[in-house]
């Protein structure tokens, strides 16, 4: 992202913990995605089992 910072915006200090926050957000999203996939697979498995039983 190429920008031409000016008008005082360039003086906004980037906090040291920004990288850590980003890392945690990505990890949280990955976990959530994994959980969703497991849930979806479990639902599919249950549905197929019900069909077999019928």
């Amino acid at each position: 992202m190429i920008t031409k910072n000016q008008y005082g915006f360039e003086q906004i200090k980037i906090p040291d913990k920004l990288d850590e926050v980003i890392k945690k957000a990505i990890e949280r999203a990955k976990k959530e995605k994994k959980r969703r996939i497991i849930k979806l697979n479990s639902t599919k498995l249950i549905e197929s089992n019900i069909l077999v039983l019928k």
Partner: protein
Amino acid sequence: MDKIITTDKNLNDELFSDLIDSCKENLYKIAFSYLKNEQNSLDAVSETIYKAYKNINKLKNREFFNTWIIKILINSCKTVLKNNKVIYIEEYNTTKSDNLDILETDFKLSIKIDLYNAIDKLNDKFKSIIILKYLEDMSIIQISEVLNLPEGTVKVYLRRALGVLKIELDEGCV
């Protein structure tokens, strides 16, 4: 078409991290311009990255990544502002000298930066346009894509916002 979706999951993750690395500082600066608070800005950036990662498959073209993620960020900032409405009303109720103290201690920025301070007087729409135009250096077309507004409307809002800022800055100079 430069598709962001690849079959390799690790490559996707790596690509996503690279894209975030290239824009993380600007994302934080936009959030801070909106929220004027470090913790809230970090929360907004965190939420943005979380949403972006979850929905990255919906982005067909990498070229639009920046526009797309800024759009998510602006919505996250608005949500944070909405959730912290009471706190902000209390801040606005403090005296003028108290407000200056908050700026000095919390933001560690010089009160002489007129434009940066003046944008707080603008409403959400005007503020978004001024931040995207003067912080992100975006074109009218890009701003209209991010904010989902027609180009003509963006031009009108920009002119009005600059009018309001001019009055604010003139008052500040007197």
